[in-house]
Structure formats: structure tokens, C-alpha cells
């Protein structure tokens, strides 16, 4: 009997099935043209190499072999990896704390705070880089002015060792509020009975936040970590804009893998090699997100066991 009902339902769904194709077709055609097409073309290009003598020749995996031994590419990958390790924990920790505080009901003007912290997300990264660049700058330098005024040493924001933390600060400024909203939304979705019982049992707000709410933020944490892997590894806008202020000693043309691919394609005319670098970067990011998901699911299994 139930089988018959299920069968009827399946027939009902598949009878109109061809309309599914009609609805998804416009998007899928654009998707094929704008995502799969360029990816395929980049892979095709990456299999060739231009030589002064003999023109363009097929080199197979040659460009990839070059890339994985290219110090410029490798140091760029290492730099964005260390950027990820320094910047993302700070940003996500702040975002979680802000979200827990907003959700605890202990803040004055919580709506205003939530909005105010989110505003930087609406600011283009180019403008964020220009603002912070001007604050850092030894030329205009409002930050240096203030630090000097209160007797603190002025850090070398644009020095080769100072530029990474300087850019990490800009990215933290831009995206903490965005991540905070994701965590806050996840907290709002929790059923209140969950912590009302604990509150009746005498658990304080700190205990509730740490023991009950924090563990339930794991799915949101996975989502924000994946966005952060993608964002960190394709870092481009901020260093590209700041390069003119900080100079080539601090931000070289291969400072991040994306800057390197851009330089190769547009300044050095090495289109084939640039395609290989872009493709490889995509692969690195894909592996990064895969690692985040694997770690997340193994943590979940251990927690369940």
C-alpha cells in the first residue's frame, strides 16, 4: 500500500520532470559558459608554452612542474597560508564572542551594535585599503600621529615584516561583522528551551554561553572557515591597492599567488604559465576547503561517539 503511494508520488513528480530542465537551463547555460568554459580553457592553455623560437608548443604538465618548484609561487602560497593562520583565528574568535554577547541580552543598544559592526562589509575592499593605507601611511599617517602623541613607538606598517599584519588588520576590519552575523543567526535559530532549562538549574550566562551555545556553533564555524579559506588564499585587492603606498620591497609582484598570476598574464605576457598558476591556486583552495570539511566531520563523529 505504502509502496503504491510512493510510486504514484514519484510518477507525479517525474511527469513534469522535463519542466525542471526548462527552469534550470538559463542558469546552467550561463554557468557552463562563465565557469566551466573558462576553467576548461585555462586548463587547455596551461598545457602549452610559448618559446621565442618555435612559437607555442605542447608541454603537457610542464608548466605545473615548473610551478611547484617556482620559489615565487611557493613563497606566495606560504604567505597566504600564514596569513590564514594568523588572521582567521583572530577574526573568527572576535566574531564568536561578539555574537554570544549580542545573543546574551546583556548589551546596551544591541541592534545598533550589530549594524555598526556589519557596516564595513558594505565598504569595497579597495576603499578599505585606501582608508587604512592612509591611516598607516608615513605621509598622512593619522595613526602614527596618535601613537606618537601618547608616547608609543610607531610600528613600521609598510615594512617588509610589518605589511602582513597591516593587511591582516584590514581584512579583520572588513569581515568580522559579516562572520558575526552568521554566528548570531545560528544562535537565534537555537530553540530557547535548550538554555531555559539550564538557567532554571542555576547556570549563569557565561556557563550557558560556553557549555550550551558554543558547541552548537560548529556548523556555522565550518561555513565561515570555508569562506575564510577561499578569501585568504585568493588575497589580491588589498595588497594590490597598497602596493603603490608600501613599495615593491614590502609588496612584490608575486606577494600572493593571485598577484603573481595577474603579473604573469598582464605584465610578463606569460599567458600559459599564468593559466597554470590560476588553475593550481584553484586546486590549492579546493584542497583547503576539503581539509576543513574532513576535519569538521571527524570532529563531529568523535563528539557523537
Amino acid at each position, binding site marked *: 500500500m505504502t509502496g503504491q503511494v510512493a510510486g504514484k508520488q514519484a510518477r507525479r513528480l517525474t511527469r513534469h520532470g522535463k519542466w525542471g530542465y526548462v527552469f534550470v537551463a538559463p542558469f546552467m547555460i550561463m554557468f557552463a559558459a562563465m565557469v566551466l568554459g573558462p576553467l576548461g580553457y585555462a586548463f587547455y592553455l596551461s598545457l602549452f608554452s610559448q618559446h621565442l623560437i618555435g612559437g607555442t608548443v605542447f608541454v603537457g604538465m610542464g608548466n605545473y612542474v615548473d610551478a611547484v618548484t617556482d620559489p615565487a609561487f611557493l613563497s606566495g602560497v606560504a604567505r597566504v597560508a600564514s596569513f590564514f593562520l594568523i588572521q582567521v583565528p583572530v577574526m573568527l574568535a572576535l566574531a564568536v564572542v561578539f555574537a554570544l554577547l549580542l545573543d546574551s541580552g546583556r548589551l546596551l543598544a544591541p541592534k545598533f551594535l550589530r549594524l555598526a559592526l556589519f557596516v564595513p562589509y558594505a565598504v569595497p575592499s579597495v576603499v578599505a585599503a585606501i582608508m587604512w593605507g592612509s591611516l598607516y601611511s608615513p605621509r598622512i599617517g593619522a595613526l602614527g*600621529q596618535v601613537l606618537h602623541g601618547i608616547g608609543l613607538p610607531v610600528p613600521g606598517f609598510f615594512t617588509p615584516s610589518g605589511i602582513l599584519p597591516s593587511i591582516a588588520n584590514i581584512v579583520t576590519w572588513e569581515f568580522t561583522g559579516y562572520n558575526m552575523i552568521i554566528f548570531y543567526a545560528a544562535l537565534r535559530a537555537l530553540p530557547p528551551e535548550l538554555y531555559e532549562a539550564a538557567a532554571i538549574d542555576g547556570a549563569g550566562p557565561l556557563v550557558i554561553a560556553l557549555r550550551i551555545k558554543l558547541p552548537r556553533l560548529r556548523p556555522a564555524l565550518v561555513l565561515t572557515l570555508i569562506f575564510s579559506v577561499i578569501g585568504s588564499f585568493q588575497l589580491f585587492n588589498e595588497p594590490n*591597492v597598497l602596493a603603490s603606498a608600501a613599495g615593491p620591497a614590502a609588496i612584490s609582484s608575486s606577494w600572493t599567488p593571485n598577484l603573481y598570476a595577474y603579473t604573469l598574464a598582464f605584465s610578463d605576457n606569460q599567458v600559459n604559465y599564468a593559466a597554470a598558476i590560476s588553475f593550481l591556486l584553484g586546486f590549492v583552495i579546493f584542497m583547503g576547503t576539503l581539509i576543513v570539511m574532513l576535519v569538521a566531520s571527524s570532529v563531529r563523529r568523535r563528539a557523537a561517539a
Partner: protein
Amino acid sequence: MTDYGADVGGSGSPFVRKGIVPNLFMWAFLIYFALPLFWLIVASTKTNSSLFSSAGFWFAHPFNLAENIRGVFSYDNGVFTHWLINSAIYAVVSAGGAAVLATLAGYGFARYEFSAKRMLFGTVLCSIMVPATALAVPTYLLFSKIGFVDNPLSVIVPSLVSPFGIYLMRIYAEQAVPQSLIDSARIDGAGELVIFARIASRLLAPAFVTVVLFTLVATWNNYFLPLVMLSNPKYYPLTVGLAQEYSLANAGGGVTLLDTVVIAGSLISIIPLVAAFLLLQRFWQSGLTAGAERY
């Protein structure tokens, strides 16, 4: 809303009653997040010379805001006006187009069974992990092969594809458009396109606005794609134009007197989006909620 603050003890001002430490902590960070924007407003009111000589975080004489804004729009024969209009056109057309495509496809994935459904949706989901900028150089290479670069469409067309929009729209459609409603419309003899146009599209309107808003932000703020695609400054959006002005200002070391133009231009460029976010709060908050709950 469960308010634990109310019974946390003591009388006195709300500040004390709610707990001093969390409030001080939060308001200290508020200063950090507001500081650059406050500086931008202050700096936009200064002359080029007082920008360098006065206290950075406070206003100075003369109050030069109107003059600076005039300077922004008159610089280089008013190219800033082009950038502003371009940013608006690129953002609005991309956002509208992306939301239409996402609504159709999200509804199709949510309410129809077809053999390639899992494969197609899986491919789209995977592509969320393909970084936009890693895709920009390949897209440029492909477009230049077919002679489709350095025109407005080369920026708009790639922005029409929003895999995250599809994901959002599918989840929303599964909840907002009941299968029973579609079935009864079919019994009444309505065709599939009529059902979508008359019933489903109205129920999907809130998610449509959410996708519009997110694509609007992504396109208005986009830098890498237009930087790669465009070489004629008349086609630049604000981001590429401002970045180039900033680079000129730095190269000139203050001699170019471009700093006020860059700073006031930056201020003008962020006003539309900040306003859109404040006005359309409901929609971006619901969009982020859908992403966070489902993962």
C-alpha cells in the same frame, strides 16, 4: 528573545545592571570599527595642506568638504561621474539578472524531479569553492580570444552567475512554495509557466531581494574582474578608478594634490551601499540565516 540581563542583579543604571565588562568590551571594539570611517569623513572636509598638517582625527579650518566634492567631480574632465554611473549600471544589471536566473533555477531544483538534477546541482555547489579571482584571469583569456574584452558586458556577463544564489533560492523555495499548492493549481489546469509566474514568483520575492542585495554588493565592490577586463578608463567602475587615483597620489608623493580627490571620492563611493544595507536589513539577515542553518 530570552533576556538574561534583566535578572542579573542589582539596581542602578542600565549600564551597571547589564554588566559593565561586556558593554565596555563591545563599545571599545565599536570605536575600532568606526574609526576609519570617522577618519574618512573628517579627512573629506580638509584641504590638501591641512590633511598633512592638522590632527588626523579631528576637523580643521577651513571646512573644505563642498570644494573637495567639486574637485572629485571635476578631476580629469569629470571621469568620476562615468565611474559612478558605471558602478551603478554594472551592479544593478548584474544583480537583477543574477537574481532572475537564480530564482528560475532554484525553483526548478526545488520543485521538479529530473534525472540530471543531482549531478547539475552538485556541480554548481562544488563551484562555490572555485575562487572568483582564480576564475577571472581564465575568463579574461577566453574573452580576449573571442574579442569580448574592454566593454561593459565583459564585466556584467560573468557576474550573472551566482552559485550561492542558486543554493539560497533552492532552500527558500523548498520551504516557501508548497508542493500541494502547485498540485492544486495543476488540477485547476494551470500550465507550469503560469504556476511559476502567477504563484511561485510571488512567494519567492523575499529571497529574490536577498540575492539582488548580495550580488549588488559583490558587483559594486568587485575590483579584480573589472581591473582585468577593462583598459578604457571611461568603462571603469569606482573601485578601479579610485585605486588608480590612489596609486597616482602615492607616486606623486603629495605633489599631485590628489589626496583630497581620492579621500572624498572614497566617501562618495561607500554611501549608496551603506544606505542600501541599512534600508534592507531584513533581507540580508534572512539570507545569512539560511546559509548558517543549513550547512
